[in-house]
Structure formats: structure tokens, C-alpha cells
């Protein structure tokens, strides 16, 4: 056991843990923060995606020692101190993206990182940035639409425009 220190969602964290432990299990089991999900343990599905200094990483296969001295952001860290949601989260709600919802923390972390580096992504950009995140419910159409909406600015988004109507 070694004492490790890093920043988690803007707060200093210090804990004794085997440095080879994947960051995911430090977050979930040692810190009891459950928004970050376990899906595959091999970096194949993206459910565990968090940010390391703003860049998306797969925390299930990222040893916690790599986080030492760095800034980690999880889904919980996207919400501001007043409880306000990130524009990507708002867009996700407007588009009814989540179904079972289990993969969506990871999807949103990947989407937030994408928009940080590319504020106006094309469909091809979205495919490239999001293809590491599996959604078994297949919410991909709505993920694409929500990313475009977030890019356009959620405040300009008309939720009625994309809502289904029963029509002949």
C-alpha cells in the first residue's frame, strides 16, 4: 500500500491503495462514487470513461498510479456547484437518450471531451470519437442528435422539433 494523491472533481484525494489498482475500482470501491461504471475490464466498452486532465481514459484499465498529481473528472464532476447540468447532459435529457442508462456516464464523458476539442463535430467526427463506447440498448441515433444539439448550444434547441408524433 502506498499513499497516492490526485484531484477528483476539483477536490484533493489522498488514499492508501495498491498503485496497480485500476482507477475505476479506486473510484467505485474505495471512494464509493458509483456514477462511473464497470462494463468489461479491458477498455473495450467505454462504460468506465473518465477524464484525465480533460482527456477521456478508460478507468477500468488505467492504474491509479497514473493519476497521481493529475486531475480526474467523473460524471459527478460535470454538475456545477448549484446543481446545474453540463450542456451535454441537458441535450441528453432533451433527446431522451438514456434507455437502461448504464453506459451513459461513459458516453457523456466521451462526448464532453469531443466537444471540448472539436466544438462542431461532423457525423464522421462523432463516429470516430464515440466508437469506443458501446451502448447495448442501441441509443446511437439519439446520441448523435444530442451531440449535434449540444454543439449548436442547448439554449437554441427546440425539443419539439425532434420529438415523435403519432402521425399517419
Amino acid at each position, binding site marked *: 500500500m502506498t499513499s497516492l494523491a490526485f484531484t477528483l472533481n476539483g477536490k484533493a484525494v489522498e488514499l492508501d491503495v495498491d498503485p496497480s489498482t485500476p482507477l475505476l475500482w479506486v473510484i467505485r470501491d474505495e471512494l464509493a462514487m458509483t456514477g462511473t461504471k464497470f462494463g468489461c475490464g479491458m477498455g473495450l466498452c467505454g462504460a468506465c470513461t473518465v477524464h484525465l486532465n480533460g482527456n477521456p481514459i478508460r478507468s477500468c484499465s488505467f492504474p491509479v498510479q497514473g493519476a497521481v498529481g493529475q486531475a480526474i473528472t467523473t460524471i459527478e464532476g460535470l454538475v456545477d456547484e448549484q446543481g446545474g447540468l453540463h450542456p451535454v*447532459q441537458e441535450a441528453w435529457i432533451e433527446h431522451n437518450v438514456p434507455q437502461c442508462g448504464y453506459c451513459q456516464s461513459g458516453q457523456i464523458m466521451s462526448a464532453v471531451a469531443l466537444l471540448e476539442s472539436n466544438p462542431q463535430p461532423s457525423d464522421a467526427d462523432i463516429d470516430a470519437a464515440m466508437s469506443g463506447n458501446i451502448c447495448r440498448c442501441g441509443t446511437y441515433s439519439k446520441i448523435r442528435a444530442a451531440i449535434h444539439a449540444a454543439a449548436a448550444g442547448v439554449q437554441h434547441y427546440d425539443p419539439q422539433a425532434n420529438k415523435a408524433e403519432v402521425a399517419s
Partner: protein
Amino acid sequence: MSIRRRRFIQGSAAVGGSLVLGVNLTGCGPTPLPHAASADLQPNAFLQLSPDGQITLQLHKSEMGQGTYTGMATMAAEELNMPPSMLHIEQAQFHPDFIDPDFYVMLTGGSSSIRTSFEPLRKAAASLAYLLRSAAAEQAGVDIATVMLRDGNVYIGDLEVKPASLIDRARQQELPEEVPLKAARDYRFIGKHNARLDARAKVTGQADFGLDAQYPGALSAVLVRCPHFGGSLKSFDASAALASPGVEQVLEVDGAVAVLAGNYWQARQAANKISVEWNKGPLAGVSSRALRAQRHELAKTEEGKQVEEVGEASAAVGERFEAFYDVPLLAHATMEPMNALAVASDDGIEIWSGMQGVQLALDAVERATGIERSRIRLHNHFLGGGFGRRIQNDYVVEAARIAQLSGKPVRLVWSREDDTRHDFYRPDATALMAATIDGDSISSMQIKAVAPSIFGQFLPLMTRSLLPRWLPSGIHDGIGDMAAGSDPSASEGLIHTPYNFAYKRSNYVMQDVSAPLGYWRSVGHSQNAFFMEGFIDELAHQTNKNPLDFRLANMDPESRHFAVLSKAAELADWGNPPAGQYQGLAVHESFGSVVAEVVNVSADGGRIRVHKVTCVVDCGQVINPDIVVGQMQSGINFGLTAALKGEITLEDGAVQQSNFHDYQLLRINESPEIDVHILPSTNPPSGVGEPGTPPVAPALANAIFAATGQRLRELPLRLS
């Protein structure tokens, strides 16, 4: 008495893979209502009004993505005349009033939740509304007709009354025999409300899945299971594991080895250090390849059981045309691996997990632990995907047993590898499809489906929940054997088809060697729609007809199939795909709904690319339109995964795949544009969670034929 209790199988009248059983539940006294608090107004099991004014809805179906959380709230809120978001929603514990009329147990599956709750849930809400209106009318000395509920308050004319102030008086009111329900024209929310009530929790990481349940001091547990189905533990050496960091205990649990440690990582690392010897059991030497060959042989040599015959065999004139179709085993691959948190104490056992079958889990834990059910408490959670997997409760029982035997609070977490290798799989199946072609028309279709039986494996589990516990277990197994030869899910989608050929016959041959089987999104329809609609397409080409025209010419022009298929063809601009793309279509009815899909595909350089899927659905009365759209998109992507990728194979009775590199799921870059249209309907609601899945594999295979001339009759689709 015991003899008469055997007479409960009502034959094969099951709809949509559901189990149709008639049971005589024992005459125990009434079960206390859920959430029982003496100060609450509790007119029924579904709804409670608390003195603080909160109306609580007991969510008696599991939310696994299909939207039932929002749908149930929408239906209840409609009769309470308040926005669905005003309801407080609780995951329900078991209660007899929550038993599904299709399954005879409390269970979420078969796309039945909205359909079977539409009447009872609205009546439950209307009853609460009536009691409040009646109490207010009595209190004010006015006619009940002048009292209404709106947005959480009771109004007598303009006078606003808080519902909570009426609780005592409402208890004294009598309900009329038939509580009136709103007319469809008066709906404020049904058919209109779109916002998912669980969305905020699910985009902020706050949604509470089984894996997220917390208990002070809980250890993480992993279980090392025999990789060979039906095999057993010969011996193990845990000395290295016990020396591994963080490990608290290693113990044998019902033929597997459990490792308990401070966190999951420690438990998993230690488990990797255990050396184990297994007896391979009854499937030693069995491979998927051999099972497939056996099914082909059975199709040629066995008649099996005839499950449908329409018309006279003598009408089957002309030249015989036949083809074999095949599908493999499939895993569910929910994103949340199986897990459960269990705490055993002198008071009994308490378990937190995501379950589709709360009642089955309750009974299974009782049987496995010997702890009486009144001392077992199960807490359901959001499910990180279900698709039928969480109807089974093996993971709940495992956690219960580890907690019981170790005496420690434990969170059992399956790895992805565990999840892939220890699933209850969609059966591997074969169909020998045959038709007689008389000139340019089809005179008959004769089908022989060969598959192992989910029903035969699952029924004994069901009957243990349904029948008195003192019945010996041999009876349950006997029931399974009895039912197996007529598994309704093996033939669903092959019978009652819309095609009116002069003679139709469908037989089922049971294969009796099998991996563990389960209900996988759309169940038998998942393979049978591929068999049927692929073969229908072949028949169109055999008779030189356009696949759309051929289908329409052979079905009733007044049918829902005709309307749905016609609309899909129109919206997809059938026959005029963009340059370089080719189209295929399919129509299929499942779970009471009819869905048609047109797939646009290209196959440049041998690479299949799905560009667009146009989907039209008739699912009766719609509750939440955008959730229906989402379910169709979801079902299509699920079906595309099976069509393009999914394949579980056995070697030596063990699954060869392990994780998402060798059991791949569709990703966003492979997911097509999906255009969904809902046909308006005044029929009662029918299924939505599953019916989008069956048509897409055949529509895609048919499009690939159009693009390449290759007729692919086996999933996953592979160009030669």
C-alpha cells in the same frame, strides 16, 4: 389434490413466447399492501397517498431501458389528472397484485408490461381519484360530479382542497363497481408525454443500479465457476489466492469457488491465482458444430410435433423448393454484468440487485438457502440492461449463498468473461423451410424447426414458484419434460403468419442436448422471423416477383401487416434507393405488434454497410411516442448486432467467447440512420420492447441478396 394440481398446463395457447399456466394459488390471507404505513391512504397495491401529500406509485415492472418507469407513471398520472413527473416512484417489492397475467408470476418480460397494466393500473389510479373526489364532495355537501382532480389538488368549483386533508374521509368512501376511466379523447399525457422520468438520474450518474448498492463493510466477491456446462468441482488449491493482498476468505460455494476481498480488483487478482480441476460433466466433447450437424440430421429424419396445419395437404402441388436456415447461440451481453449485494443475519437475508423476476428470485433464494421467504427481503434496482437475461436469478442465488456461508456482507460482481460464458443463451436453431411452387404461385409452405427447448429448461423453475412448496422436485422436472416437446417459443413467428398459401404446415423437433437457454429479446421471433422472411424473399425471386408485391399479393389487404408493410415501402421509397445502395424488406408480428423494416445496404469490396433502416410499427395505443421510437431504434441495433456479429460457440461443452473483442456488439460507427414511423391505432397497447428486433436480420439478408446475389441463410451474415 396433488393429482389435480398436475393438470395445469393449458396447452400451447401461448402468445409471444409467454408461458400460459393456470394455477390455483393457495388460500393464504391477504398480503399486506406494499409501502404499508397506517397513515397512508392505500386503496390498492399500486398507489398510496401520504399525509405529506405525496402520491407514490409502486413500480411493479423492472425498468431496464424499455421505458416502463415513465410509461407506468404516465398511465397512472392520466387518471389522477396530474403530470407524471409529480408521482413519487418506488421499486415494488413482491405483492400478489403485481403478478403478471401472462406469466402467473411477478415478472417483467414478453413486452407485456404496458399491455397488461393498461387497464388495471388506470383503474387503480382512477380508484384513488374517485375516493378523493367522493370525500371532498361529502365534506362540502356537493355532488361528486362537481369535484375534480387537477395537477395534484382537488377542486370543488374554484375551491382548492389538499388531497392529504381528505385521507381519513376518503377511507370511508365506497368505490362503485366500475370506476369510470377517461375517454381517449380526453387524454392529457397518454400518447403525448415524451420526457423520460429517469433521464436526469441516468445522465448524472445518480441512477441506482444493482452494482451501485452500498452496505457498510461489504466485501467484494468473485466466483470461479466450472467453464463446462453441467460440470462439477473436482478440487482446488487456494493457497496463493489466500496470500494475495486484501483477501479475507476463499470458500467453496455449491460447486464453485468464491473469493472475498476488500475490493473487486483484489478479489479478481486473487481468483486468477486459484488452480482448479473440474469434471467436465455431460457436455464434455460437445461442440456447436456438432450440434448444428445434429439439427440438420434431425430435420431430415424426425417428424417432431406438428404445431400448425392450415388447409389440405393435397393442395401442396407443384415443384418442391427447400432450404436450410441456421442461427447460433447468442449471449445477452447486458452492459451491467450480473451482480448482487447480499447480507445474511439472524433475521434472515437482505439482497439488492437488478431483477426481471423478483418473485422467481425470492423463491429461488428460499430454496437455495433454506431461509423462509418471510425473512428474505429483495430490493430491486434499475437494470443496466435486461433483454431477458435477468429473468434468471442465478446471480442472486449465488450472492445469497456466499453471504450465508461466509457470514459476511458481500457484493458479488461478475466479470465480463463470467457474463459471456455463464449466460442463458438464445437457442441455436435450424429450420428446414420448404414450399411447393405451382407455376408462378406458391401452393404450400412446410416448415420444420429444430432447436433445443427454452421452455423445457425454464418451466421447472416457474412451477417451483407457482406450486405448493411441499411438492417433490421430481414433479417440477417432469413438467419440464412434458412441456418441452411443444415449446411455443420454438415456433412463434413460424405459425400464424400473414401469408395465405393454400396449405401451411409447421413442425417442431426438439434437440435434447443444449447449453443453458434463456429468453433473449424477442425470443423465438429472433430467429424465426429470419427464417420466414428470408425464405419468403426467396419464394418471391423463385417466382420472379418483386419482394414487396409478392408479400402484399399473398396477404389480406385489410390486415395490419399489409398496412404496415405498404407504409414502410412508401416511406423508404422502395425500389429507388440512392446510387450504390440496395434494399431489402421484412414484416413480422410479435408481442401483438406488427413491424416492417426496409434496409438500405451497400456491399462494396465485400464489406456490408447498413446505411438506413426505415421502420413502421403498429403497436396499438401509444403511451409515450418518443419511447416507442427509441425502442424501435434499440431493437433494430440489437437485431443488427445479431445479424452482423453475434455468435457464441461451444467447444467441449464450454463457451469459447469471453469479452467484447470476440463477442462484438454494434458500435456507433456501424449504426445506421433509423427512421421510425408509428401507425395511429385505437387498439389497446401492444408490445414495444421486442418487436423492433425480428424483422431487421431478414430485411438485411434480403438487401444483401439484392446487392450481391448471395442468398445468406445463416447468422451472422457473412459474404463468401
